[in-house]
């Protein structure tokens, strides 16, 4: 509990700052008299500009899932990634507390590199290792207004890395906040969260400040934990009737447990995470379809991590042997080899040198792919040194090593965008941006850090009304970067309005993913100084483990996606049915290859590198529907079916089927009852697949929320029961979710 205290202290201090700042824009004081010029005739600032208005989804040329505030509240989501369970085709997992991940159409691991994620137009992708620090973004779930998820590549609109999908998050305009908001949540495995938000309003200015503290003890059966404090602010300033300025900043600081207890090479430790950003946006709106914006931002993501230790060579030896077996297991899919390794495992556990020698003979006889026999022979060799080691005094067996896991990733970008209408039937959006990524990661890019990348981008897309019921969408992005040079990502979609209630869409798009700086410049290893008493390993006194050495020459990954969509909007209030049939072809996938012999001197068969490998294909169907059942009940459904063809890897990272159901019912306007069911068929995350850790998830949650007034304040509380039908695993099979209860209380004061 003691680690919770700093956050509480920070929150209390923040409350003292925020409370006096929070002003009420309309408390009855001296209300001035009306004036015909001010109150009836003079121009007012454009508040709902085209960029703020959402185009009806049925007019959208792509498959889009919208998660608005109402759905965020109804789903009872406790984290941002929780929400993506509602999106067909998404996979969500939390390998450890504080580091959740989300991916679209498989290939997910801790560093999902194929999603573009924008928060108010700011890319939060980490240029060093890819992915989004979902668990430590300086963003409170309570400040989010709307999330649009474009299911499919869309670089022409959303920029580089809009590869498999785009998540576009919009926070609330500061004018939408009032007074002081406090909310607290507690439940599960000692998880809690406190959020405090204050706002201030003046004639032309709206301001908001949010502070949040979160703590979690993670999975019951694991040693994980996480805690985070964040502070974010937004200032909206209305310069004139047409010009507006928006400034934002955010800072988060926390840590989460990584590594494993008892593993000297990856010890259990807290990894510090810090993220901060500043963003400025100027916008000029001259009408509904006449907009010019300039935006700049600077984003920083840091890891504070590292470890060092002295280990007994005996333990190291045992680990090396396990590691060798693991490697043999992961390389071969041959059941005979697996059987052999199983027996080698037993022989190793028994220290049975004779049995191991026999197995080596058998491995040679099997004559399968890979060097299984050679690796088993290595084990025999190690086992032979065991008696010598045992004879030594402990201090002479010690091996020491250290690893510097500190990283800093910075991204700065300036973007200019123009939106205009040319005539009745043509709308255009175009612009350009300059971006600079800088990373420093001495332990991950030994002797190669720091590194940087520059990206120049031009983009444009047009919406052309060909006929009354035919809309053509065409666009492209030209990108030039230091890593892979230049590329063009085009996109084309045709929308046919079959009736006022039904729309067909046909689309093609192509996008690329530039390797992240780690994939380009990796030089990662743990160097262990071996004791003299361990004379094996080719006479090298240093042993390098977990080597990943980038060899350069990577091409960008490319995706080509075709989709056929149909959307039906029944007359009932906000009901819809959306079907998407898709086919995706991914080429030049960047993947690690183990043991490839390259010119690099220090490259040996324990190393891996990044190469472009052959492609793969994904086909399937996705359904999303929102169906009212009576005036007070609504069912929301998301379903995905997909088939992955991959010749090089087991196609297990993409589940064949997934389903989400959310049923909400309002017995009275102040009460909400909801039930949620999630199902994901067998899948394995990429970093779990080597362990053949296939899991399937069934989850059932119930929720009750009540809104009430308490001493003039608007208040609400909710009670949430999760994982009711069975325990289910998440990400790794040992990550078990037990039935748990969460309680949330919130209040709007003043």
């Amino acid at each position: 509990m003691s680690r919770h205290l700093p956050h509480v202290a920070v929150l209390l201090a923040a409350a003292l700052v925020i409370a006096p700042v929070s002003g009420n824009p309309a408390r009855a004081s001296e209300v001035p008299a009306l004036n015909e010029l001010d109150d009836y005739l003079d121009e007012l600032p454009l508040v709902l500009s085209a960029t703020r208005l959402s185009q009806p989804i049925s007019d959208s040329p792509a498959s889009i899932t919208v998660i608005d505030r109402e759905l965020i509240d109804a789903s009872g989501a406790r984290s941002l990634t929780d929400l993506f369970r509602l999106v067909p085709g998404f996979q969500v997992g939390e390998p450890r507390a504080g580091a959740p991940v989300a991916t679209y159409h498989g290939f997910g691991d801790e560093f999902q590199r194929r999603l573009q994620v924008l928060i108010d137009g700011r890319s939060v992708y980490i240029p060093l290792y890819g992915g989004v620090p979902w668990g430590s973004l300086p963003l409170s779930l309570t400040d989010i207004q709307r999330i649009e998820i474009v299911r499919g590549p869309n670089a022409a609109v959303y920029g580089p890395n809009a590869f498999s999908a785009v998540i576009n998050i919009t926070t609330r305009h500061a004018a939408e906040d009032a007074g002081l908001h406090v909310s607290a949540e507690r439940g599960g495995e000692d998880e809690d969260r406190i959020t405090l938000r204050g706002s201030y309003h003046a004639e032309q200015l709206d301001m908001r400040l949010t502070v949040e503290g979160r703590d979690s003890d993670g999975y019951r059966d694991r040693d994980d934990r996480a805690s985070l404090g964040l502070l974010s602010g937004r200032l909206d300033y209305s310069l004139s009737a047409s010009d507006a300025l928006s400034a934002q900043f955010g800072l988060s600081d926390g840590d989460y447990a990584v590594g494993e207890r008892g593993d000297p090479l990856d010890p259990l430790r807290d990894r510090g995470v810090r993220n901060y950003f500043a963003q400025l946006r100027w916008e000029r709106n001259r009408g509904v379809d006449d907009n010019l914006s300039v935006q700049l931002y600077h984003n920083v993501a840091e890891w504070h991590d590292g470890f060092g230790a002295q280990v007994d060579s005996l333990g190291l030896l045992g680990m090396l042997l396990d590691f060798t077996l693991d490697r043999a297991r992961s390389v071969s899919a041959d059941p005979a080899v697996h059987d052999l390794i199983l027996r080698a495992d037993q022989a190793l556990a028994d220290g049975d040198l004779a049995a191991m020698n026999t197995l080596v003979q058998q491995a040679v006889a099997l004559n399968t792919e890979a060097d299984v026999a050679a690796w088993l022979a290595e084990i025999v060799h190690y086992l032979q040194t065991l008696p010598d080691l045992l004879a030594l005094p402990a201090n002479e067996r010690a091996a020491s090593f250290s690893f510097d896991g500190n990283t800093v990733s910075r991204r700065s970008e300036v973007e200019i965008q123009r939106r205009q209408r040319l005539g009745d039937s043509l709308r255009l959006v175009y612009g350009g941006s300059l971006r600079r990524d800088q990373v420093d990661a001495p332990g991950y890019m030994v002797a190669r850090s720091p590194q940087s990348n520059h990206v120049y981008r031009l983009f444009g897309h047009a919406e052309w009304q060909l006929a009354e019921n035919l809309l053509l969408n065409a666009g492209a992005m030209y990108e030039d970067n230091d890593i892979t040079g230049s590329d063009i990502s085009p996109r084309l979609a045709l929308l046919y309005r079959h009736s006022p209630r039904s729309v067909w869409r046909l689309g093609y798009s192509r996008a690329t993913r530039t390797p992240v700086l780690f994939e380009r410049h990796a030089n990662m290893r743990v160097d262990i100084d071996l004791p003299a008493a361990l004379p094996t390993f080719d006479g090298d006194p240093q042993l390098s483990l977990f080597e990943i050495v980038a060899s350069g020459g990577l091409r960008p990954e490319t995706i080509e996606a075709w989709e056929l969509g149909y959307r039906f909007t029944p007359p009932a209030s906000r009901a819809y049915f959306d079907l998407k049939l898709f086919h995706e072809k991914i080429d030049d996938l960047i993947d690690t290859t183990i043991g490839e012999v390259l010119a690099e001197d220090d490259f040996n068969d324990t190393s891996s590198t990044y190469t472009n490998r052959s492609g793969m294909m994904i086909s399937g169907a996705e359904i999303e529907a929102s169906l009212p059942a009576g005036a007070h009940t609504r069912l929301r459904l998301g379903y995905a079916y997909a088939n992955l063809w991959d010749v090089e890897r087991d196609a297990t990272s993409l589940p064949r089927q997934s389903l989400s159901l959310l049923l909400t019912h309002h017995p009275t306007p102040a009460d909400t009852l909801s039930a949620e069911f999630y199902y994901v068929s067998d899948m394995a995350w990429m970093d779990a697949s080597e362990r053949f850790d296939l899991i399937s998830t069934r989850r059932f949650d119930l929720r009750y929320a009540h809104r009430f007034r308490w001493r003039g304040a608007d208040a609400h509380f909710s009670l949430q029961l999760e994982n009711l039908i069975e325990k289910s695993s998440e990400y790794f099979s040992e990550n078990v979710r037990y039935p748990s209860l969460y309680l949330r209380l919130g209040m709007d004061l003043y």
Partner: protein
Amino acid sequence: MHTAQQSRQSRRQPARRAAPIALPGLLALLALLVAPAGATAELLLAQSGDASAYRQTREALLGDLSARWQIRDLGAEWNAGETTAARRGEVDGDIATAIGSDACTRLHRELPDTPLLCLLLPRANFNDIIATPARAVRSALYIDQPALRQLRVARHLFPQLRRFSLLYDAAKPPPLLDATTPGIELIAHPLAADDNLLFSLRRALRDSDALLAIPDKRVYNRRSLRSLLLTAYRARKPMIGYAKPFVKAGALMSLHTRPAALGSEAAGLLESWLDGTPLPQPGHPRHYAIAINPGIARALALPIDAADYHDRLYAAEELP
């Protein structure tokens, strides 16, 4: 509609746009063309400032008055803050017309014995002004369009909208509350002295289809409008503005008064007065124009062709 076209045509004549210097000549010409019948009178005309809305009202008024009138025009230079006690004798007429609140306030105070017609001012302001009684009659054409008319037209254009929330300062309940119209439900949300506007708005939006804005400065002002429009839009509930600028800012639609149409209507009242009809009770203008924000309509999935209603003027009793 007939009246609307007439008034538009008359405004298109270049002579009507001429500088005040050209006016006496023009009036002389009119006097020759239109033979004056019966009585003549002197009209004292004051306007609150030089804003274009005041000018448009004045030009339309003068343009539509017959040659029977002699105009004593205090013009735009006339400053509401300046004392005219010394000039009280010289500034007078058979009847006075004030354009805007300031001019109305001043003429009401300074000419207690002269009939006064105030134009283009908020209804609330006129009521405040005449709280101090005068000996001669006081009448007005407000800038406001009646809220009930707003409701009827909104309901007609957007049949999906049936329940309207009305947010107002509890200290100043609007007269609209007593009225009922079939097919329209009005839900009153008075704002007590301690109430937070945005929290009240959120509650108001929950049980209605749209928010009806009324001229109540406690609720609708330059400081609060961003919050109101954004919050209503997030709740997917459109705002019906009470004035045209609301529409560009982000309201779905508004009925509003065209200053020129109001000027023409005032000219008609003055002519009748000269013919012996007393000034009518203070009231709302007979004509209204509609503004629609097509972007908002599209975003809220309310189908309408905004261009159909653009630049047209409707008479009080007609629906578009």
